């Protein structure tokens, strides 16, 4: 491909580890284009048909000016008395038929070419979409922490579209243009070299403009996409946090933020348009100048009798065929520029290796006793600032029938412990084992099938209640689903809804209160088997009475599993076999309820705060 020659910089995307991931796109656009083109050529049959059709379409298109020239010569010939009338009429008839057939064939092959081009474009879009989807589901939490969902959406929609457009309109059209200009050049040179040179004088100038334009446009596209990503982020956050915006009547502030960002985006848009217009109009101008030269030089040549009038017509007709393509060159460059930035943004993500993945020799987790152990675990978030550890020296052991409770101030690392059990992050020191197997050595799928975490913040899919409850096991039977909902004290509520378990929830369905959502999430968790069950503060929005009933419903389940309960309400965990008091990532107290009370330390203080009646009365 032509663009390969303009390669600048290193020849490889060097961004393939999550931790070095950058939002910025690498400078290596030629690689990106090359890669997209290679993807297109993977659809060999379609591309072959497409290319053959392109060649034929271009060929037939090149016939048209020749036939036109011939017709003019034939008609003119009679005027200059070089042939008789009957033969001329026959000749005109033949030329007319040839013209119709050439046009029709050209149309048919163009159709073929376009169709194949679009089909390949859609196929590539499809493949990219699938790869992108799979990749996003594979990438680890620490990566998702850092990227904005709006940005990911933009890539999944706009960038795939940008790549697809280039394949659809660019790749084959590039052939078409080359053949049209190349084939035309041969024909014209054969007629008259001098005039041919004049006719094609615009090609190198346009070519030069193209290569300049491509880089500049690409640069503005890149800036535009960045700016649009910012704008998207502002809008998305505003809409997600609309209650906060309303609560503080911050609409003006939000509009200001939007306007600021929007104005920059508009300025870049204008810059892009300005550049684009400048280049395309210049190209058309140069093209027309060439045409004027052809008329001038060619006209004199006809007058001097060096070429025929028909040949001049042929030159001019050929040039007028090029008028559309010259205009399209502009669009093509635009689409190249866009595809190379879009492709870069996509490949940046597709090339990442998830930092948390199965080891090559990973084996499935084998559950024997169901013992979960933390041994001297240290942890800090990969992206965290400072060198403060989030967890240090955590050791604990949970086994079926034994419940561990965790309390501690916000940010002490409770949720982090939960995340480590499912290996959503890797420990930075020590180890987490289940039945003696380090969780880093077992397959992720088998690990996660055995660790059930009911998260602090429930996430519901916009779907029916039973889809949501059965999210982890979409094959679950109705009775299992109802059983889980009953355990979470939700069954009665759901069965009283007009459509029962088929009721839609989520943003378009009925709105559930915070506590109802948490119970939904509990139902989802208890539907599944697994050796370890973790409740991460998952009853915070549920009133005490309901919570107690959930707990008694859970009694049987709890007996068979190692259970970890994170809670602030001490009644939620005071019956745990061991309670850990966490502070700044360290266990500062541990023991059962009575032991901890006896120590009269932090736990005892907390307990007295929640039970003694008079304490806060005095304060207020």
């Amino acid at each position: 491909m032509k663009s390969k020659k303009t390669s600048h910089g290193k020849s490889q995307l060097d961004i393939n580890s999550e931790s070095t991931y950058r939002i910025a796109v690498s400078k290596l656009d030629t690689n990106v284009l090359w890669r997209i083109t290679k993807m297109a050529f993977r659809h060999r049959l379609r591309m072959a048909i497409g290319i053959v059709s392109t060649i034929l379409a271009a060929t037939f298109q090149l016939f048209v000016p020749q036939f036109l020239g011939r017709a003019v010569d034939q008609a003119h010939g009679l005027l200059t008395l070089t042939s008789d009338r009957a033969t001329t009429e026959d000749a005109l008839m033949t030329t007319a038929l040839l013209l119709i057939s050439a046009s029709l064939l050209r149309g048919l092959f163009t159709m073929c070419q376009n169709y194949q081009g679009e089909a390949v474009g859609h196929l590539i879009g499809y493949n990219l979409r699938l790869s992108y989807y799979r990749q996003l589901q594979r990438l680890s939490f620490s990566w998702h922490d850092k990227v904005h969902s709006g940005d990911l959406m933009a890539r999944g929609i706009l960038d795939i579209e940008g790549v697809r457009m280039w394949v659809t309109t660019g790749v084959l059209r590039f052939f078409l243009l080359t053949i049209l200009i190349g084939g035309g050049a041969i024909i014209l040179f054969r007629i008259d070299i001098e005039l041919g040179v004049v006719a094609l004088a615009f090609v190198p100038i346009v070519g030069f403009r193209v290569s300049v334009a491509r880089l500049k446009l690409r640069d503005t596209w890149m800036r535009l996409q960045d700016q649009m990503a910012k704008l998207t982020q502002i809008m998305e956050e505003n809409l997600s946090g609309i209650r906060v915006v309303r609560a503080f009547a911050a609409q003006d502030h939000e509009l200001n933020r939007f306007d600021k960002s929007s104005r920059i985006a508009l300025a870049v848009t204008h810059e892009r348009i300005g550049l684009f217009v400048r280049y395309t109009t210049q190209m058309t101008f140069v093209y027309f100048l060439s045409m004027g030269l052809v008329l001038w030089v060619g006209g004199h040549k006809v007058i001097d009798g060096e070429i025929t009038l028909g040949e001049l017509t042929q030159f001019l007709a050929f040039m007028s065929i090029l008028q559309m393509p010259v205009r399209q060159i502009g669009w093509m460059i635009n689409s190249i520029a866009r595809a190379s930035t879009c492709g870069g943004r996509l490949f940046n993500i597709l090339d990442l290796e998830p930092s948390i993945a199965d080891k090559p020799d990973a084996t499935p987790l084998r559950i024997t006793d169901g013992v979960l152990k933390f041994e001297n675990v240290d942890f800090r978030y990969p992206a965290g600032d400072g060198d403060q550890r989030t967890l240090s020296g955590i050791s604990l052991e949970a086994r079926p029938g034994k419940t561990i409770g965790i309390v501690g101030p916000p940010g002490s690392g409770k949720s982090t412990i939960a995340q480590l059990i499912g290996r959503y992050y890797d420990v930075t020191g020590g180890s987490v084992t289940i039945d003696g197997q380090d969780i880093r050595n077992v397959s992720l799928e088998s690990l996660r099938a055995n660790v059930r975490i009911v998260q602090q913040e429930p996430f519901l899919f916009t779907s029916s209640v039973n889809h949501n409850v059965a999210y982890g096991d979409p094959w679950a039977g109705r009775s299992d689903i109802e059983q889980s909902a009953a355990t979470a004290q939700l069954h009665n509520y759901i069965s009283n809804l007009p459509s029962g378990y088929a009721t839609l929830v989520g943003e378009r369905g009925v709105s559930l209160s915070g506590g109802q959502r948490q119970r939904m999430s509990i139902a989802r968790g208890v539907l599944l088997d697994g050796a370890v069950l973790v409740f991460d503060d998952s009853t915070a929005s549920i009133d005490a009475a309901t919570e107690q009933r959930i707990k008694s419903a859970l009694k049987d389940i709890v007996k068979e599993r190692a259970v970890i309960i994170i809670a602030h309400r001490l009644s939620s965990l005071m019956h745990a076999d061991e309670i850990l008091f966490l502070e700044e990532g360290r266990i500062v107290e541990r023991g059962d309820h009575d032991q901890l009370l006896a120590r009269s330390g932090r736990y005892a203080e907390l307990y007295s705060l929640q039970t003694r009646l008079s304490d806060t009365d005095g304060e207020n």
Partner: protein
Amino acid sequence: MAKATPSPKSNRPPLAVVGSLVSQDEDLFGRIFDRWVVGRLGEYLRPYRARIIIAIGAVLAFTLTQLAIPLIIRAAIDDAVASGGEIAEGGALLNILVAVFIGVVVFNYIANHVQETIVGKIAGHLLFDLRRAMYAHLQVVSLSFMDKTEVGRLMSRLQGDVNALQEFLESSIFAIGDFVLLFGIIAVLLSLDARLGAMTLSVVPILFLVRIIWLPLARRAFLRARETSSATNAALAESIHGVRVVQELTREDVNFDLFDEKATDNLNSHISGSKYTNVLIPIVDGLTGAAMAIIVIVGGGLVLDQALDIGVMVAFLFYVQRFFDPIRSLTIQYSIMQRAMAAGQRIFEVLDVEVEVSNKSDAQDPKEIDGSIEFENVTFGYVADQPVLKNISFRVAPGETVALVGPTGSGKTSTMSLTHRFYDVWDGSIRVGGHDVRDLTQASLGRHIAMVLQEPYLFSGTILENIRYAKLEASRDAIIDAAKAVGAHDFIMRLGAGYETELDQGGGNLSLGQRQLLSFARALVADAKILILDEATASIDSYTELNIQRALARLLENRTAMVIAHRLATIRGADRIMVLQDGEIIETGDHAHLMASEGLYSRLYRMNYASFDDIPDDVARTLSESNDAT
């Protein structure tokens, strides 16, 4: 690239879908009101009237030059070149004509530059105006609309649909130019030679016939393509937002297969749509060929009869080639246009969403209010005939701290939302500082009421910016004081950059409790007369909470507070406690009073320490009755 290898098709799980169950846009795409959309777009073009007139002038000039070029060629051929004989004179004439040609080309260049620049820029402005109008409108539409509408769906209108319009607007200038050119060419052809012109144009009706058959079929195909696209994008959005749950419940493979189904559907519908776009090409080209054949045969015959100049025939041939260009591009633009019309409609739908809660024309914005809150016979619900609050009346005196307790779903949050007039009541009235909330501006409610919402939403940006959100002019000291009051200062200082630490999306790099503290600090900075705390400390331990309460005792002097909490320890210090059940206030009084009355409160309160083994049966029964009703 890791090529997506579809995993072996497992049997399809009965209870799984990706993306919304509801077909995203079924309700929207019934018909296409092209004229309506264009009319509405016109309104947004009004500010650019002057520039549009210039642009139209440029388009006309550009088209004239386009038309002139073959005419000059004709003149050159007929008068200068083909005239044979007098060579010297022909050469001179040719030179003049070429000079004219160059002049026209320069003119063409200028006009082209002007038209494309202006149109491109107006298109840019228009899109940004539309997006801003939508965004601004979403800032005021009722929350009941926002509750029902997924952020992703709105985003797809703010971005996707606006982009679809962009494609249309930027190419529309060519369409307009093409149109003018079309008529120009017809005029020129007929004036050059009426007979030949009429015969050449005789192929045009065939084209119209073809379009009449083609249109409904193509429209259906394009519609399907668009629907499958939005379904695929919705599924993608879901996977992005729910990625943590997906990984936790190892739904990757199931979801991938389901997504593959949607994407395949999308692929097929687009490929079938592209069949419709392209089938027109050979038809148009065939007709072009036919028109040229007519010129060659008929025109050639006329030339032979000396009834037509050879140059006219050449000009005809040139015009016919150009003649079908606009027709061709207008057809190819058809799908862009369709998309744009649908997009326009979706955009205007957003703009037309009714604003149920809006400022009255004479709404007041008092500088100071006294901080009282009064509910009088308030009935309210989200769905018709299902009241959530039933005839509630209460009064909170200025400076008083009132706690609201009750089972989930009993209507506590709704009560708070009404105080801030997030929704309008069905019946009764609410007064804040003695003013009916409907008589106050929303900005004034925002200034006098500070809220800590149940879900502590934070924005990207620094911690400082987030705490300052409610009061942009708050000083750094005020912010640090607020952070200290809620006990957030210590952890903030432990973060790498302190108050300048950048938060991830939604504050993801903080724990939920920490986010709650920041959201609390944010409300304190607002320095409002009324403070509303909706489970503001649910994810915070009691010890931290106690410290907050101590600090609050000082901060809340002379301020009114309404507090929702489940942990009764949180609220037992309140001046008054109201127990809400099933949308009704069933008990009210201070802690001691309620404990003595042995009602729901005292039972709930005791429950807090009970283990699940020792809930008395009768309590469980009463409680379950009350809870199941929610």
